[in-house]
């Protein structure tokens, strides 16, 4: 995830650690036009980004592992009784299989317990950011 000043709702987990080399003006103007075979099929066709009208980086964040096999979306949802954390964990277990878990956490402790028990804890970069962002989203007071 990028620094706060430049944070985008959806960013690579290691983008700030390994800055991309600056491209020439011509090459920098190119945009990827073709996704790898199968990349945009099925689950990945879902809109993973925030709703530009109702959501911002204060209510929606996304963490992607370096290898791209893990994606965690975190969304704060305000209920009359207090904020809850909606988490969507997407795991590409094999090149041919994607497993997605959709969860709603009422309390931060419950969320942290999940972070400590789920296999995502072995993705060190991801789990640190997921914990921090989850805390930030639940901690925001409006």
């Amino acid at each position, binding site marked *: 995830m990028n620094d706060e000043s430049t944070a985008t709702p959806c960013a690579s987990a290691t983008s700030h650690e390994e800055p991309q080399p600056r491209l020439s003006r011509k090459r920098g103007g190119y945009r990827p036009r073709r996704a790898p075979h199968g990349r945009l099929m*099925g689950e990945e066709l879902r809109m993973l980004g925030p709703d530009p009208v*109702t959501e911002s980086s204060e209510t929606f964040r996304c963490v992607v592992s370096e290898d791209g096999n893990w994606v965690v979306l975190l969304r704060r*949802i305000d209920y009359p009784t207090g904020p809850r954390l909606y988490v969507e964990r997407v795991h590409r277990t094999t090149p041919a299989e994607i497993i*997605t878990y959709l969860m*709603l956490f009422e309390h931060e402790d419950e969320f942290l317990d999940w972070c400590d028990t789920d296999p995502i804890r072995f993705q060190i970069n991801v789990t640190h950011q997921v914990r921090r962002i989850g805390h930030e989203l639940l901690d925001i007071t409006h």
Partner: protein
Amino acid sequence: MNCSTSRTEPSDAPEPTPATSLENAVQSASFAGLNRLIAKIPTVHGDAEAIDLLQEAVQALGCTAAVFASFIRDDATMRSCRYLFSRGPGLRQLYGTVSSTADDPWLHYAGQHFEPRRSRELDVPLDAHARRSFLAQAAEIGFRDAIIFPSHSVNGPSRVGMLCLGSDQADYFASPDALALLSVPASAMSFHLHVWWHARLRSDLVNRVRLTPLELDLARMQRQGLTTKHMARVLGTPINTIDSRFARLCRRLGVGSRRAAVELLHSYGVI
């Protein structure tokens, strides 16, 4: 697909005391309200709202927890499964150990059968270690009794839904009479969640890929078996235009051929 970040509480009334038995649960007022819950499914806007709805159903049925799974096989090279968990840590931890959909005995059963069945009655082969381990762990985390409600679609085993209700009581689903009463709304809920999820996927596909009416016409003609020359004649455009439009469509869908693109669109109910 996004959901609103602010919403009302799923149920303002205090949470009902868990029923001591399924017989009590099916005679309760909350059980009678299940139809209202099922009727709300098509209007659910986001996953968080669906989780709330699932949670309400769990409470109405006096169960401990529930999970709804939607399995999708796009083609031979891509399959995916989404699990929607009711509140509570047990099931989330249990599924944390699942590294492949093939290791989920409940989903495995749902993929091959139509009728509801209790988890303890599943025939899991001795050499299916991961599935047997899953069932043993389910009992350990307090999921002592569970029942599976499969839901299928016209796409056969490529589109399978599964609702699993669980209880921390060992023989919660043992009564045949109560189970018969439970099966109607639970099967309906499984089916409608399955339908709802498919409608969402279809909508996401159309929005993400931004299909044009002309591309849909081309895909339909391709499915009917028309040649490129024939399509060009029908649409009054050069053959090269047809080819380039299909190439663009395949690129946006992330598939390698016209045939795969058409199969994908058909499997999602777009054409």
